[in-house]
C-alpha cells in the first residue's frame, strides 16, 4: 500500500467516524469498557494465573503440587556455590541449594515455589558424580534435547486435561532406557501419549545412568 493510499484510507476512516452511528458505537464501547473496568476492580486483586489455571477441579491427581510450603532459606549464594558442594555430604546442602536456585521470577505462572518442595526428598541423593548439580535442576538448562509434547487433538477437542508424573531412566548414552508413569493423569491415553513422546523425543547428554521424575501438565485455556 502506498503512502497516499494509506493516508486516503485513514482519512476515510476518520470521515466514517464522524458519522453518527459510529459515534454511538464508540460511546457504547467506551461505556461498556468503563463498566467492565469498574467491575473488574471490584473483582478483587488480580489473581496470578498460576492459582487459577492449575485448578482443574476434582479428579486431577495433585499430590505433588499441593503443599503450600515456603522455600527454605532462599539464599542465592548457596545456589551459585552449589557446583562446589562437597561430595562427601551432599544430602542437606543439596536439598536446600536447588530450591534457592529456583528462578521463581522467571516463570511464576508455571512454577510456584511451593510446588517444588518435594524436590528436597528426591534431590538429596543425587549421584555425586553430577558435574553441575544446579544446572541439572531444570529442563531447559540441562544439556540435551527436550521438546514439549504436542497437545493431543482428541484431548483438546474433548476438553481432557490432566497432570502426570513420569519416571525416566536415562542410560549412559543419554537415551531413555525406561519411561514409566508414576502418577497417572487419570486418562490412560494421555499417559501413553506423554510417555511415548518422552521415550522417543527426549535425549540427555551422555553420562552415567540417571533417573528423573518429570511432571507434565496438560492444560487447556
Amino acid at each position: 500500500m502506498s503512502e497516499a493510499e494509506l493516508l486516503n484510507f485513514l482519512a476515510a476512516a476518520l470521515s466514517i467516524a464522524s458519522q453518527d452511528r459510529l459515534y454511538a458505537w464508540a460511546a457504547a464501547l467506551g461505556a461498556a469498557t468503563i463498566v467492565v473496568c469498574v467491575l473488574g476492580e471490584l473483582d478483587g486483586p488480580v489473581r496470578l494465573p498460576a492459582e487459577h489455571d492449575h485448578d482443574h477441579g476434582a479428579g486431577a491427581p495433585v499430590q505433588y503440587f499441593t503443599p503450600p510450603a515456603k522455600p527454605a532459606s532462599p539464599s542465592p549464594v548457596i545456589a551459585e556455590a552449589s557446583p562446589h558442594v562437597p561430595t562427601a555430604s551432599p544430602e542437606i546442602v543439596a536439598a536446600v541449594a536447588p530450591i534457592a536456585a529456583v528462578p521463581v521470577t522467571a516463570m511464576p505462572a508455571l512454577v510456584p515455589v511451593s510446588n517444588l518442595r518435594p524436590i528436597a526428598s528426591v534431590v538429596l541423593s543425587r549421584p555425586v558424580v553430577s558435574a553441575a548439580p544446579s544446572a541439572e535442576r531444570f529442563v531447559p538448562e540441562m544439556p540435551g534435547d527436550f521438546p514439549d509434547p504436542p497437545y493431543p487433538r482428541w484431548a483438546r477437542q474433548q476438553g481432557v486435561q490432566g497432570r502426570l508424573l513420569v519416571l525416566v531412566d536415562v542410560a549412559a548414552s543419554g537415551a531413555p532406557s525406561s519411561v514409566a508413569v508414576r502418577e497417572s493423569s487419570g486418562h490412560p491415553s494421555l499417559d501413553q501419549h506423554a510417555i511415548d513422546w518422552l521415550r522417543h523425543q527426549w535425549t540427555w547428554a551422555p553420562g552415567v545412568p540417571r533417573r528423573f521424575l518429570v511432571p507434565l501438565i496438560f492444560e487447556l485455556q
Partner: protein
Amino acid sequence: MSPFHTAFLLAAATLTVSAQEPAPQKLKPVVIKGSAIGGEITAVTPPLRLSGAGLEALSATTLGDVLADIPGVASSYFGPNSGRPVIRGLEGDRLKIAQNGTSSLDASSASPDHAVSLDPLTIREVQVLRGPAALLYSSSILGGVVNVIDNRIPVERLPRAFTLFGRAGSADGLRSLSALAEGSAGDFAFHLDGFTKSTTDLSTPIGRIADTASDSQGAGFGVSRVGPSGYVGLSYSGLDSTYGVTEPGVEIGLRQRRWDLACSVNAPAAALKSVSYKLGVSDYEHSEFDGGVAGSTFTNQGWDARVDFELTKIGALEGVVGVQSGRFDFAVTGDEAFLPNTRNANDALFGSFVQSLSTDSRLRYGFRVESAKVSADAWTHEGLVSNPAAASASFTPASLALAWVKDLNAQWSTTLSLTRTERAPNFQELYADGPHMGTDAYEVGDRTLGKEKGVGLELELAKTRGTISGSFSVYYNRFSSFIAQQANGFGPDLTGRATPGPNYSSGVDQLARHDFVSVPADFYGAEAKVNFQLQDEATSKHGLEFFGDSLRASNRDTSEALPRISPGRVGAALHGLQSGWSWRLDATYHLAQDRFATDETPTAGYTMVGASFGHDFQFAGAPARFTLRLTNLFDVEARNASSFIKDALPLPGRGLEACLKLSF
C-alpha cells in the same frame, strides 16, 4: 519437615547412594498448553474454536447455523438445508471455508442454494481464523477463514471410542442418527464415522413451507500409521444429500466423494519443528431436479494440496511458512447453464509469524501471494445472442496482515490489526452469462474485472481472566474494489424457461438482470461479548452473558446499502452447570434492517428466545448425555436479512429438539 522425616530421608539417601542406585531428580513441570477456545498460543492458533460438547449443544443443521451465534457471524439461510456463514457481511468466495486445511471443493460459493458439502454431524471442530493466521488458508481474510476439522485422518494414537448420537426435532421433523468409532492397534490409528439424517418440510409461524425436506447420508473412513516421528494417513469419505430449496417441485441431489492424504514429520531438521503435507482430491456433483427431471448439473472435480513448514523458535520469533496449490474444473450443464466450463488454478506462498517484542507485547504478521488463473471454454448459448469465445484471466493477489497485541495487565489485552487483502475474481464473476435460479436472476459476469482489493483496520480490547471476561472490537473494512451484483434491468427473453421464483415480479419470461461489477465499498461495525461468571466452583457454575454486533455496509460511490446485510443484534444469556445438569436461557433481539439495496425489501426487528437443558448420566455403565433444546419459544415470525429468499421463507417456528449421546 519433622525430625522423623529428616532421619528417614537421610537414611534413604545413604542407602541409595551406597547402593549406587541413582534416585530420580525431579524436573521442572513441563506445561503443555492447549487452546480449547482459542487464544494466541502460536502463530497459527485460531482465535475461535468450537469442538466437543460445545459443538453438539448447538445441534445445528448447516455450517451457517453452527457459527451463527458468534458475534459478527450471520447465516445465508437458503432454507433449512443450505446456509453458509457470513462474517462481517462477507460471504461466498470472500469467506474461505476450508476442510482440514484444504479446499472443500464443492459448489457452495457459486450459489446460495448450494449446500456446503460438510454436514455438521461429521464436523468435530470448527476454527475461525482472523488476521495473520488466516493467511495460511486464504488471501481474502477481512471476514476471516473458517476451517472445519473432521478428524477423519488420525494424527496420533487414539483412545478407543464408540459413540452413538441420535437427534429428533419438531420444527423441521428432524430424525438423525450418527455413529463414530475410533481406536488404535499397534502403530495404526483408525477413524470411522457415518450418519443418516432426514427432515420434513419446515414448520414456520406462517405454516409449513413446502419443498424444504431433506434426506442425507454420509460416511468417512480414515487410517493412519503413527510413529515417534510423525504420521501418515489416508481417508475416504462420501456425502449424498437430497434437499428442497423452497421452489415448487425443485430438489437438489448432491453427491461428493473425497480422498484425503495427510502426513507430518516432527523435527526433520534443526530449523523445523514439523513439516506437514495435505492433499484432498474431490469429485463433486449436484443435479437440480425439476419435478423429478434433472434440469441442470453442476460438477466440480479437483484437488488441493499444501505443505506447511513450522519453524523452530528462533529467539522471539515463531512461525509457519508454506505453499498451497489447487486445481478444479467447474462445469454446469442443462437449463441452468449460466457458466462456461472453467478450469481454475491457484498456487500460493504464505507465511504467518508471531514475534515477542517484550514480555507484554507481541507482533503477529503474515503474507500470502497467490497466482490464480481461470480458463473458460468457448460455449454456445442456447437461443441467446452471444456465443462467448474461450478466454482466460490471470491474477496475482497479494495480501498482508499485521497485528500488534499488547497486554495491558494480567487481565486485559488489546490488539490493533491492519490488513490488506486482494482476491482474484472467480469463474462466476468473470464468465457468468445466463439465468441462475438460485439467485433468481439473469447473471452477467465481466471478463475485464480486476482484483478485489480492500484494507481493514480493527481494534480489539479483550479481558481474558477474572470473573468478568469478554471482548469488544470495532472494525472498518474499506474496499477500493468490491465485486458486487448490481441490478441492471432485465435479462434477455427466455420464453419457455422455468418459472421464476417468489422475488420475481416483473414480466413473465424475464428475469431481473444482475451484473457483476466492481464498486468501492465500506463495511464497518462493532462486536461485543461479555460474560459475568456469577459462580465458579468445580461442581456449580453460573454465568450471565451479554453479546451484540452491528454492521453497516455501503457502496461508497452511491452511498447505497449493499444487499443482504444483517444489521446487528443484542442478546443476553443465563447459563449454568450444577451436579450433572447444564442449562442455558437466551434471548436475542435482531435489529430491523431499513437500509437495503434496490430490489430488496426491509426486514423487521424480532426477538428470538431459546432454552436448552443437558444432563450427564450413566447408561448401562456407559457415559451418556441427554439434551433438550427449545428454539423460538414465542413462535415469532422472523426474516433473516442476509437470506436471498427472506420474503418467501421466515426462520423456523417454535421447535423442540432432543438429543441423546451414548459413549461406549
